[in-house]
């Protein structure tokens, strides 16, 4: 229990630090949102309107410390203010509309990458030096060294433009209304394949190598030898004895990745015009939309912290050694 409480305290401090950083960072950037809007509109916005816009958007500001305490107060009431680039929509509403798509894309690709990557890792380590072990890891590492967006653009070109078999953009076809029927769900799935695939391909190598290496050291343990000596079936030894014990580092990694799902695969989302959080974050940065940026950063930070906390909890169950520490 003490362990959990200590961790909780740590996470609270981290959360406070991230709120403070969130508050500070956008304010250190040059320019202000209204002038930015003016320059983006190429003078289609009347210069005389600028002052009233500043009033309207509340960016005239008071002393920074007043803004700071007001900000902390609002964060704890879930009020992130009004988005500037999508004025007058509240930030929380913008994020709520984007978050499900990012979670879907992130969760599906993480799930696939973890399952496939770990399975490949287990098999590669089990048949060390075999075809799977000698060919696949270098190949995956090679693919993994591509930037996300490069692979995304390549697959978009090949499957979307040249072959014309996959959708080019967005999370579902134009003209469809979200509902839980088969047409819509399959449409969403079809739009998910390429973006998810490009993320899976890039990240799978890491999972495979990680699992393979832990498996190899686990395989050298005495209890594996013991299990083999007892004449247990190899499959049982592989999964129930070796893989199970080699899984701990992967759990940590899953926890970390879970948190980062919320941040979204920014560039992948941009390439596929996928309406997720990453995509919105880019728009927020381009529009110098402080409230939206802060809301997004905070959501991402909170997700990372929460995921780590959950992993801590799981770890306490999985690994008795941490309970003492």
């Amino acid at each position, binding site marked *: 229990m003490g362990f959990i409480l200590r961790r909780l305290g740590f996470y609270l401090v981290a959360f406070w630090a991230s709120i403070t950083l969130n508050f500070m960072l956008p304010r250190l950037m040059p320019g202000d949102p209204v002038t930015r809007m003016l320059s983006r509109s190429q003078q289609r916005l009347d210069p005389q309107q600028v002052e009233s816009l500043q009033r309207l958007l509340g960016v005239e500001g008071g002393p920074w410390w007043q803004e700071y305490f007001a900000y902390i107060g609002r964060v704890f009431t879930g009020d992130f203010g009004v988005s500037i680039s999508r004025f007058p929509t509240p930030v929380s509403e913008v994020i709520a509309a984007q978050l499900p798509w990012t979670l879907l894309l992130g969760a599906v690709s993480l799930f696939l990458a973890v399952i496939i990557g770990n399975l490949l890792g287990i098999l590669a380590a089990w048949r060390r030096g075999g075809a799977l072990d000698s060919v696949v890891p270098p190949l995956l590492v090679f693919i993994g060294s591509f930037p996300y967006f490069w692979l995304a653009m390549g697959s978009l070109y090949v499957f979307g433009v040249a072959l014309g078999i996959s959708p080019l953009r967005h999370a579902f076809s134009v003209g469809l209304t979200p509902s839980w029927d088969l047409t819509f769900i399959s449409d969403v799935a*079809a739009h998910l394949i390429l973006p998810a695939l490009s993320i899976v391909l890039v990240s799978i190598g890491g999972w495979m190598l990680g699992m393979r290496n832990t498996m190899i050291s686990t395989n050298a343990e005495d209890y594996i030898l013991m299990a083999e000596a007892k004449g247990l079936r190899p499959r049982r030894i592989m999964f129930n004895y070796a893989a199970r014990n080699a899984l701990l580092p992967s759990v940590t990694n899953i926890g970390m990745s879970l948190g980062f799902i919320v941040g979204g695969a920014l560039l992948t989302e941009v390439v596929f015009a996928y309406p997720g959080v990453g995509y919105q974050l880019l728009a927020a940065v381009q529009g110098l939309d402080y409230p939206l940026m802060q809301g997004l950063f905070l959501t991402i930070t909170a997700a990372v912290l929460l995921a780590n906390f959950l992993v801590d909890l799981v770890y306490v169950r999985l690994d008795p050694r941490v309970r003492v520490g």
Partner: protein
Amino acid sequence: MISTSIRRALFRAGAVTAIGALALTGCTATPDDGAAESGPMLTVPREDMGTFSQNFNPFSPNAAPMTTQSVYESLLIYNPAGGDTVPWLAESWEAADDGLSQTFHLREGVKWSDGADFVAADIVTTFELQRELLGGFDYLDTVKAIDEKTVQFTFNRKFSPALFEVGQQVIVPDHIWSEFEDPGNEENPTPVGTGPYTEVSNFQTQSFDLLPNPNYWQPEKQKIPGVRMLAFAGNDGANLAAVNGDVDWAPQYMPDIQSTFVDKDPENRAYWFPPTGAEINWQLNTTLDMFADPDVRKALSMAIDREQIVKVGMSDYTIPADCTGLSGNYDEWRDADVVADCDWTGYDADAAAELLDDAGFTAGADGQRTTPDGEPFAFDISVGSTSSDWLSVANIIAQNLQDIGVKATVDSPDWAAVVAGYETGEFETGIVWSANAPTPYQYYRNIMSTESVKDVGEQTFDNYHRLGDERADELLADFAATSDEAEQADIMSELQRIYSELAPVVPLFPGPEWGAYTTDNFVGWPTEEDPYATLATRAPTTVLVLTSLEPAE
């Protein structure tokens, strides 16, 4: 043995996934294109909005696209491509003899999309809201409904450009907007307008449809089933959609448009980039000693090769500027004599060098020029890092200047930083766009009036180069005071002469108004031969296109 069964299981899993994927992709092969019997929607991309909010408030800077084009309309429409003015919600108008008021006669039979009559009170309410929420119109004294169909604007000073400013303000219905408690923050999700396509349908964050207004005042012009907007976070996605034939109208910048877009289907695809956008200027900060002398500014202007700038930097999409500094928007006002008499926008490196020698900016042994104070004649050209076309323009300028011994360095941080420097006057030179209004009044006011000059350090949103001329002030005041067209033309010629004499900024080229289209689904687009509008989707003229298009056979 066992490992083979695992391999098989793995393969089976893989196969199932692959089949599933194919089946799912198959499902999208027949996307829903709107109601089959009414034909496809007019599909238009919006390249700078990754997602839409259902906000149809015309007073909001982030209103959904088409809010002020298709949903709400204005009293008149000025068409920069043809130079003509189209009466719209107003049938006619006249200025009072003293120039202190302007009266509009509203069109009979116009109804709001909810069936209510369009009346003078709507205009009164609109201007109240506009001034309260966004300011502006400081020359406006009162807006008064004379009767149901007549509205009079009175001014606190003579200001003839008001006709177009007032006339192009989109009008909202009084019976709806006077009920809103907080009109500035109102999202107005189901707008009531007088425009051709007002009915919002199937609103998603990445697309929405506007269906025909059931009570439109010119029903014979609603020939298309509706307008469908698609959201894109940048040009790339929107260009891909255009190249792929997924949109009917592409108003965004496309590099090498002939081969990437038109050549894919030359029968149906075309583009038209009239030079009617804002004038693009190279502004020299005249508060710095080195740029205070008009001869130096003219010399720098002569040293740069506009032909090359337009060809290489702007992919030949526009034309070089002349020394009236006016974009194609103002062809009606251009004084041919001023253009003929002047030489400082033509490329002549030798003359430029001579002019700099005379001004005391002589070259040393290494060929580099120094200012009369003995400092090296060197400066930065600021331009935002995201504008790749303007970046190459700046680079060409820097190369050209190198030839006459002037050292210019291209400085390209983020646009926000660049503009912040322009606004406070803490920059050396930079590439700047100009105001674009129906008359050149606003353009010359921003560039030459002493009223618009602020001290360095004080923020300003126009006249970044900080130069004013008292003769220009007088002429501008005279221009605003008369609505006699011949007199206005004379004054404008005089202003052009002063501009040509002063060279307050170095004009580069008029910004092209991007626009491309396909006739696959719709015909009746504006073209160079029939310039009834530009191909812009965010201009006041957009509604003219929407009411001219008809489905292709």
